[in-house]
Every structure is written in C-alpha cells, then in structure tokens.
C-alpha cells in the first residue's frame, strides 16, 4: 500500500538535493534549513516529539536570523526563454496540466471504479499521493521532451524554493500553531465569548459570526492561514459542526474563502495590496484596497449564504 511516507521520502529527497546544491554554492544558511527539512521528511516519523520540536526551533532560529537568501542557479536567459516560448507555443502548458489531471482523474477512478478495492493507496490519501505521481510523470515527460541537462530540474527547483524561502513552511507552522492553540484551550475561550454574543440556537447568526470572525482575524493578521485554526477551533468545529450538525467540508472550505475576502481589505496583506500600489507607482498607497472593497464585501455575504445553504439547508 502506498502511504504518505512514500511522499515524505520523495519530498525529503528533493530537500536533501537542494541542501547539497546550496552547500556546494556556499550558502550555508539555505543548506542548513533545507537539510533540517529533509531530516524531518526522512526521519520525522521515527523521531521523538521533543526531537521534532527542537528541529522546529532550529528551523525558526535560522529563518529568524536571516540565514535564508535567494540564489541564482544556472538557468536560461530571458532571450533564450522568449525563443523557446515562440518555438514551443502552448504545448508548454501541457506538462503542468498533467499534474492536476493525474490527481483528479485518478481520484475519480479510484473512488468510483473497482480500482479502489485494490487498496493500492492509504485511505483518503489518494489525491495527494496521485499528485506526487503526477509530478513524477510530468517531470519525466518534460525531461524526455525537452532534453535539458540532467541537473536542470534540481537547479530550477532550487531557484524557486530559495525565492520562496522560509515562507515555504509557514502554512505547516501555522497548522502546528493551531494544534498548540487547541491544546491550550484558546478555541474554548473564544468560543465561550462567541457563545455569549450569539443568541442560542440561531444557526444563521452563528454562520455570520464565524464568517465575520474569519474576515476580521484575517484583516488583523494579514493572513487567512493564521486566522483559520483560531476560528475553526473556536466556532466552526464546536458550534457549527458539533452543535448544529453542519457539513464539515463546506464550513472549512468556504470559511477559508470568507477569510480571503478579508485579505482583500487589509494593508497587512502587503504583498497583495501595498506592493502592487508601489509597483504601479500609484499616488494612494491604499488604491488597490479601494478597488477591492466593492468586490470583497458582497462576496463575503455570498460566502455566508453558501455556508448556510450548503452546510445546513442542503445537508440536513
């Protein structure tokens, strides 16, 4: 049976190669950071919780001290790329499409045909595992088709992962923060406060408070990822799902999207809202946010309705 452990070995191999290439390039901070991540993927399941915790602290120390830098591995020049693009045309999109197609078609086949009975994949893990298979197929196809140097995928991948830097593990770290918040009872405290505000038994108002909390926390933190674990453990799971019996998939997915409406409204989400105003040399720093208000507010209201209808009216 193929499990997540297989994916972890694949990811561990990718990070180990990036670490080795960084070391060869004398970028020691990058080398150490990606090497620790490779250790986590290879051996995390066999290490004690404390060892994993110390590994997390080490990762954060490297990132916090500014140890991660962008790199410039060998690649093609803009002129060469232009020439390749003109020659290859829209076929360039095909390998990138292989990945989602493999995963979606594979998942459907696995769930709705007798293939599922083979038990080839760990239960409920098939989509991400098929994603990994899709990546391998796409890479192999691209290598055979375009015949780049053998190290090109590793170097091009390093170019991208170094440009992402520490942000690459921020979502994973925020999920871990959510777990610690849950352990410390943060969700219970906020949920208790929320329960005091929301009239008992009103599903619709609870949905409104959940979606409003997602948007407001996102605006404060500048990031829906940071808001989600707090609001899900405070209101989404205990009230909407456990008390009122709502559909978890709708509450999770659309709750996150209600948070994204908050991202459109906040200068804290600088990458999306402030940086473009600077890039476009706009006089008003908040000009982009001003254009987004009229979309974000009605869309937030639509999300409230989708949760209410999809998670409750259609589900029960």
């Amino acid at each position, binding site marked *: 049976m193929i499990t997540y452990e297989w994916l972890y070995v694949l990811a561990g191999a990718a990070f180990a190669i990036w670490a080795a290439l960084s070391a060869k390039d004398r970028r020691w901070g990058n080398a150490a950071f990606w090497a620790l991540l490779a250790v986590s993927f290879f051996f995390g399941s066999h290490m004690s919780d404390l060892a994993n915790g110390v590994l997390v602290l080490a990762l954060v120390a490297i*990132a916090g001290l500014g140890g991660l830098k962008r790199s410039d591995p060998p690649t093609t020049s803009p002129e060469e790329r232009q020439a390749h693009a003109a020659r290859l045309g829209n076929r360039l999109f095909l390998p990138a499409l292989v990945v989602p197609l493999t995963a979606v078609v594979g*998942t459907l086949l696995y769930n709705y045909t007798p293939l599922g009975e083979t038990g080839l994949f760990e239960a409920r893990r098939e989509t991400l595992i098929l*994603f990994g298979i899709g990546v391998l197929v796409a890479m192999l196809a691209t*290598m055979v088709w375009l015949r780049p140097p053998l190290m090109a995928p590793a170097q091009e991948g390093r170019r991208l992962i170094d440009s992402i830097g520490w942000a690459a593990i921020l979502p*994973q770290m925020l999920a871990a923060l959510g777990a610690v918040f849950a*352990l410390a*009872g943060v969700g219970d405290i906020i949920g208790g406060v929320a329960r005091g505000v929301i009239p008992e038994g009103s599903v619709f108002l609870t949905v409104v408070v959940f979606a409003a909390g997602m948007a407001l926390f996102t605006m404060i933190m500048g990031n829906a990822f940071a808001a989600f674990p707090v609001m899900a453990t405070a209101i989404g799971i205990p009230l909407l799902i456990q008390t009122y019996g709502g559909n978890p998939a709708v509450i999770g997915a659309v709750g996150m999207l209600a948070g994204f409406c908050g991202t459109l409204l906040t200068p804290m989400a600088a990458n999306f809202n402030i940086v473009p105003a600077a890039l476009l040399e706009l006089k008003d720093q908040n000009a982009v946010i001003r254009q987004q208000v009229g979309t974000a507010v009605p869309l937030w209201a*639509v999300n409230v309705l989708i949760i209410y209808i999809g998670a409750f009216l259609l589900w029960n």
Partner: protein
Amino acid sequence: MNYWPLAGIAIVVLGFALRFNPLLVVVSAALATGVLAGLDPVAVIEALGKAFNDNRYISVTWIILPVIGLLERYGLQQRARGLIEGMQGATMGRLLVAYLAFRQLASALGMKDIGGHAQAVRPLVAPMAEAAAVKTHGDLPEDARDEVKAMAAATDNVGLFFGEDIFFAIASILLIQGVFEAAGYPLTPLELSVWAIPTALAAFAIHSWRVLALDRRLGRAGQ
C-alpha cells in the same frame, strides 16, 4: 476562566504588525500560549514538534517546483505573457474580465505563479488596461488612470484568491484538512476544493460587473 492564553493571539498580531520574521512570531506565540495555559515548556515544545511532524503533508506540495522551474526554463512565463497580450483589443472592461477568467482558470489548475503583480500586472495587464481605457474614452486625468491601474492589480488578486482553492494540492486546502483531521473530522482535499467552485463563480460575476461598471463610469466622466 483563564484568559491568558489569548496573549498568543496578541503576539501574532503585534509580531506581524512589527514585521518580525513570521516563523519566529508563530513559534513565539505557540510557546507563550502553551506556557500561559499552565503547560510545562518542554511539553509545549513536544506538542509543537508533534504537530509540525503530523502536518508535513502540507509542505509536500513543493515537489512540484522542479517541474514548474523546468517549464520556466523553456519560457512558460513568456508564453503566458503571449496569451495575455493576445487578449488586447476591445475595451478595458473586456480585457480585465478576460484576464480575470485566465487567472482563475490557471490558478484552479495549479499554475498560480502565472500572473502576479511583478510578473504580469506591472509589465502587461495595467499598461494594456490603461491604453484600452484611453482608446475608448479619450485622454484621462491622472486619478482615473490610477483607478484603472489599481483595478488591474485588484483583478489579479481576486483571480488568484478565488481560483487557487479549486486546486486541491495547495497549502490552504491542506491546512483546512490538517485542522479538521486534528479535531476528528477526516476530509479529503477534493471534498474541500469542490466547495471553492461556487465562490469562484460568484467572485467572477461580482468582479466582472464591477470592472465593467468602472469602464462605464469613465465613459460618463469623459463626456
């Protein structure tokens, strides 16, 4: 009730506002929250390590980078620019609606790095939208030009945010899965990502209407 664990949230807010490294902020918040809730510091580090380890699958998605990088080496970005450039003609409104559709579809298929403010909006989408607006409405004052450019950037954001979650192998979907699984509700990424579709359609409808309304308003102001 002990309200002290909420200090962790305050640390996240303050830390992000003061622009400390976000990883540092998140881990400080986790440690402070655990300790203020009365847990032993070592137990908090253990809990953090276990949770980080349990959520490794969120970061697995980076294995796609060698494929994307390889395609970029052969001009993926340049080809995407060619597609956007081919959209020209007609009005600013129609141009931005077409870009919105392109951005949403590409993100939904996992190509969220096609587009973006530095790569697409500044060099392509904003100047093309401005030129189209001038062509239809005649010379525009500085404020109106800024509005058009800001709307181009807004269109990129809306297209990305309300397209990307349809792609299941993305951090936000896996984060939802992680949080719900920890609470005892196992979901598959695909179950979650199909529920991003209704909002994506609503986002397309609302934002398209707003872009076209801006185009009409510029026309009235010019008369």
